[in-house]
Structures are given as structure tokens and as C-alpha cells.
């Protein structure tokens, strides 16, 4: 029916998610894609490119310009047995739909005593460094991770993007799926067939093994941390990089295990610092690994300011140097 790629393909994240959506739609006729401009245009980032052509306007739905409407009608469709995959065009535009997500989507299963299920996915391109105007570069993940009833995941590379979107669609709980827009165009090899060796959706991954200090990150910051690890290796320091992948539930087993070996942890994210995901990771690692820690857990994050104008965003965003600086701090104790 469609030209589904097979074998090992070199894809960027956009193409990988597109292929994942395609595969899910072929596999299950109940899967719907809905959002603003997802049809003919293929979404403003072209993540849904070609899907309407192949699956029709019934399954790839250009919605009215109304986020509460998108999420709210998806709730109804999910209750009716469909599996809607909603696209929110940009991070900063999720808020008109926030009430539906937090009050309705997250609680339906609980309120119904487990009788109702909402198998829906809310895709949100997020994060900065693309030189955009305001509301187009935000990292709102903590709001959602703070809400019980939602699963919150984020991919950092094409392989995960391809598999995680399919896993998210198959899940019977609602998933908020964050896509790192600054990494959208980075390519890597994706095994389109081999299900074996694919991690469960809700698990962290060791992105790079190392021995001297642990760096935990997710989404767009994983690559920054891998770059930092490469630079550190040149200086003879071995960093272990962990890609958290899932923010709710947080899978910290790999982090605990790593910190017990390295004794040092730096947590990195673009979102504001205070009460962010990094705070939770630091608290939990302190609880679990206190006697293994050689230094306090360090955070490298955005500052506690609104996301700044594009011409200063690189100063706001954590970069390789700030990560290395924090690693240095953990060795200073």
C-alpha cells in the first residue's frame, strides 16, 4: 500500500518518525493522525509528509486551529476505540490544550476505576537553538512529567524515534511524545525490521559507556553530552552518557548503576532549572546512591528566565563547555 522502507536505512528523525507512523497506520486501521497542517503540507516540519496521500483524509486529519479541540476530540475518538496521534505544532502552543491533557487525558483511566482507556499519543516538537521567534523553542516537559496518568518520553536519535513512536502508539496509556526539533535533521542508521534488541519504551539507555563520571540527559541534549564526552576523552577523562528517554516514569536504574561505578553525576537539560527533571534526578540519586557519590550532583540547564530572543539563545542553552565545566566541578570535591 505504501512504500514502507525496510532493512537498514540512513534516516533523519523526521523521516524515522514518519516511517514509524506509517508502519503503525498500516498495522492498525484504528490509528489516526490529527493536527494543524498535517495533511497536504505534511506538518510544518514534514513529519507527516505523504501520509494523507497514502491513508486518506479520514485517517490523516487537518483539524481546525484549536489545540483544546484537537486533544479533546482525540479523547472522544480514543474512548471510541481509535488510536489518535495528535500533533501539536510547536511546544509553546500546547497550552490551549493543556487543560484537556492534564484534567481529562491524564485522569480518565483513574477516574473510571480502570474501565476506560485512552490510547493516544500527543507529539510535541520541542526545544531551542533553531533561531525561532517566541513560543517556538520551549521545553515544557516537566509540566507533563509532573502529572500522574501521563507517560512522557522523548527520543534523541532516529533509531529511537522510529521505534519509540510505534511503541507509544501501541501503548494503552496516553503518551506525551517529545521530539527534539534541533536534532530533526541529523541522520543515523535505523534498522527498520529487527524488533529484537529494541529497548522497551520506558527505559533509559547507556548511550556511551565510561568510567570516570556519569552524564544523564535526554532529547536534544544527548548529542551535546556525547560531544562533550568526546572532548573529555581527548583530555583523558571517560564519561558515561545516559539517555533517559523516559521522563515519566523515570527510569533511573541505569543512572544508579552508573553512579555507583563513577561516583559522579551531571544532569543536563534545556528546560529551566528550578523544579525541573534534573531536580528529581538529583534527589533520587542522592536517596539511592548517597554513599557512592564523590561529589554533589551537578545540574546544567536553561536559566530560570523565559526563553530568550534567538540572538542570545546559545548563551541560555547548555552547551558542550558548560557540561564539561560541570564535570570539572564534580572532580573538584
Amino acid at each position, binding site marked *: 500500500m505504501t512504500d514502507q522502507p525496510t532493512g537498514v536505512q540512513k534516516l533523519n528523525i523526521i523521516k524515522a518518525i514518519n516511517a514509524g507512523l506509517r508502519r503503525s497506520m498500516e498495522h492498525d486501521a484504528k490509528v489516526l493522525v490529527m493536527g494543524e497542517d498535517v495533511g*497536504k503540507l505534511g506538518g510544518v516540519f514534514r513529519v507527516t509528509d505523504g501520509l494523507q496521500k497514502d491513508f486518506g483524509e479520514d485517517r490523516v486529519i*487537518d483539524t*481546525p*486551529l484549536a489545540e483544546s479541540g484537537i486533544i479533546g476530540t482525540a479523547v472522544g475518538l480514543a474512548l471510541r476505540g481509535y488510536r489518535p496521534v495528535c500533533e501539536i505544532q510547536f511546544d509553546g502552543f500546547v497550552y490551549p490544550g493543556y487543560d484537556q491533557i492534564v484534567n481529562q487525558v491524564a485522569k480518565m483511566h483513574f477516574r473510571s476505576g480502570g474501565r476506560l482507556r485512552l490510547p493516544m499519543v500527543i507529539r510535541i516538537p520541542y526545544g531551542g537553538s533553531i*533561531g525561532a521567534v517566541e513560543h517556538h523553542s520551549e521545553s515544557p516537559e516537566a509540566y507533563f512529567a509532573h502529572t500522574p496518568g501521563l507517560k512522557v518520553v522523548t527520543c534523541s536519535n532516529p533509531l529511537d524515534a522510529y521505534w519509540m513512536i510505534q511503541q507509544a502508539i501501541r501503548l494503552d496509556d496516553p503518551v506525551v511524545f517529545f521530539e527534539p526539533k534541533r536534532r530533526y535533521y541529523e541522520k543515523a542508521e535505523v534498522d527498520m525490521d529487527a524488533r529484537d534488541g529494541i529497548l522497551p519504551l520506558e527505559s533509559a539507555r547507556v548511550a556511551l559507556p565510561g568510567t570516570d563520571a556519569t552524564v544523564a540527559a535526554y532529547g536534544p541534549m544527548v548529542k551535546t553530552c556525547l560531544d562533550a564526552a568526546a572532548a573529555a576523552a581527548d583530555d583523558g577523562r571517560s564519561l558515561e552518557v545516559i539517555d533517559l528517554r523516559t521522563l515519566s516514569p523515570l527510569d533511573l536504574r541505569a543512572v544508579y548503576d552508573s553512579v555507583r561505578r563513577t561516583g559522579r553525576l551531571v544532569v543536563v537539560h534545556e528546560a529551566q532549572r*528550578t523544579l525541573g527533571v534534573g531536580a528529581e534526578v538529583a534527589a533520587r540519586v542522592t536517596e539511592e546512591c548517597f554513599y557512592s557519590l564523590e561529589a554533589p550532583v551537578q545540574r546544567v540547564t536553561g*536559566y530560570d528566565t523565559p526563553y*530568550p530572543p534567538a*540572538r542570545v539563545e546559545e548563551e541560555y542553552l547548555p552547551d558542550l*563547555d558548560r557540561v564539561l565545566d560541570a564535570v570539572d566541578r564534580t572532580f573538584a570535591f
Partner: protein
Amino acid sequence: MTVETAAGATPPEPELVQLLTPEGLRVPNEHYDALIADITGDDVRAMYRDLVLGRRVDGEAVALQRQGELGLWASLLGQEAAQVGSARALRAQDHVFPTYREHAVAFCRGVDPVKLLALFRGVDQGSWDAAETNFHLYTIVIGAQTLHATGYAMGIQRDGAIGTGDPDRDAAVIAYFGDGATSQGDVNEAFIWASVTNAPVVFFCQNNQWAISEPLERQTRVPLYRRAAGFGFPGVRVDGNDVLACLAVTREALQRARDGEGPTLVEAFTYRMGAHTTTDDPTRYRLNAELEHWKLKDPIERVKAFMVRGDLADQAFFDGVEAEAEELAVHLRAACRALPDPTPTSIFDHVYVEPTPDLVAQRESMTTYLDSFAEEVAR
């Protein structure tokens, strides 16, 4: 089942207020003629200048974006008459709540176009002073400003600044938004608020037919101006490419508001000639024929034809405006390139009225961090 488009269900072309045909012929209108009876040749020439300079600001900004000087630009091409006509209906004490495309309205309100460029360059997020021009900040979250406009109008009402009969005192608010925005909850809530409070606000919808890639049929099955009836206030559809008609219709709506008669929905029926923004590719979703059709309705050409026909201007006038536009463009290019980047620590300014201890500490740590590079270089 297929999700059918509304094309088949579209009712016959509804009433459209038009005072100038696309060929520049003056269409008499019993009701609206009176609303522009005071307009002189000078006024028409002034509006022509607004249209041309507004278009030039826009064209220059698109060029600057292509040269990498702006991160993004949302072009107003095709919508000049809707913006100039409505803006010239405003009095000094009236307030404007725009979206992100109202560059010609900003121009008419005296906002320095360089400040618009600064926003799209990523230097700041709106550096003009709304208190100076009564032109509020651009709003990117679709529809949000319609509620702000309504609330502001409720404030004017409370302050007793309507219905006094004093033309220098009675004030109104105008909220700009697009056809896509009419689907947002906020816009519908603004309609309800304005209606039940009888707030002095004019909802000015520039129906440019497209919300990025989605045609009007994705947002509505009834002509937008008719929505107003359901909320309990008048709605009117005006030819958005006819500056005189936009002026007349908006004048009437604003006056109703100032007189204490409540809100009006104006639907300016127009067309977005360019891309949605400089990152958009309209060839993916719309046909060239549509564009060609609307080219014939160009808002500037029709005023020009009207002026030539009525001997309202000679070639020297048109050349003069052209020269002024060229001069403005040269100024914008230089001024845009000269805009300094903000200093890194400026991101900590104005997060709160008084900085918090946490932010002071974060600013210090950024400064120390940045200074560490300077030291390294020095070493």
C-alpha cells in the same frame, strides 16, 4: 465516510461591502458613503502612501530574511488595504491588539518598523512602547489577544470613557486575528465576554483564506461574519482589498463601540499573496490560479486607478511616494544590520520587577562563566 470539504455547501457569495471595484471605480453605497463623506483628496493620497510604504516595509523585510538578517518574517502582502483602512479609522485614544502580521497597522500607528524587524531578527520580543502608540505587543499564540482586547475594552467601559459624546475621549479597542483563529476557544470566549459585557471592542478578522496550509473550509462552514449573530452582536463582511470600504466599515464599528453600543465583528475578505511566513512553502497546498485570480484585486492598484481616474494625483505624486519608499527601504536595511545583539546577561532582566536572589545568583554564575573564556584567551 469521507471528510468532505465545505466546498459544495458554500452558500452564494454573501453581501460584501465594496466602495471601489478592482478597476478603481467608485461604487455608490447609500449607507457607507456617509461614513467617508469627509474624506478629501489629501486623505486618499495619505492612504495611498500608507499602502505603498506598508508594502515596502514588508518587501524589504522578506528580502532581509532571505539575506539571513531576520530569522523569520510573516508577510502582509495582499492585506495592505484591510490594515490601512482599519488603522486609519482609529483615533489616537483607541487601542490595537495585533497578531504578528499587522505591520501596516503598526506603521499607521507610528511604530518604528525597525522595532518590528528587531523582533523577527531575534533581538527582542517587542521593544515598542504600547503606551506611546496604543499599539500593543504582537501575539503569536493564536487568538490570545482577542481576550486581552476584550478585557482592555471592559476597562475603558469601567473608566467611563465611552458614550460621553466627546470625540477626543470616547475610546474603543480593535483586535486583529485571522480566519484560522476563529476556531480557537479564546476567540469564541472573547466573543461571549464582549457580548455579555457590551464591551467597546471591534473584532477585525482578516480572512486571508488560509491558516498556513488549511483553507477556510477547515475552520468554518458559515461565512465568518455571520458567526457574530450567534453571539448577539453585528457582523459585517467587507472587501478587504478595498481601502475605502475597510475605512468606512471600521469607522462605523469603532463608533458604535465608542458610543457604548458594544462589539462588532468585521470580516475583511482578502487574500494572503505570499507564503504564511518565510519558512512556508505554499506551492504544496494551493494552486497558482488562485493567486492569479487575486492579483487582479490588488489593493494598491485599485486605489491608484481610482486616483488617476478622479485626477486625485499626478505622476509626480506617485513618483514621490516611490522615492520615499526607496528611501525607507535603504534606511531599514542599514538599521536592521546595525541592530546590536543583546548582551547574554540581558536575559535575566525584567523576568520580575525586582530580581529574585536565585536569578541574581544565576546571572553571576553566567558572568563568571563567560569571563572564564576571556581569561583563557588572555592567558
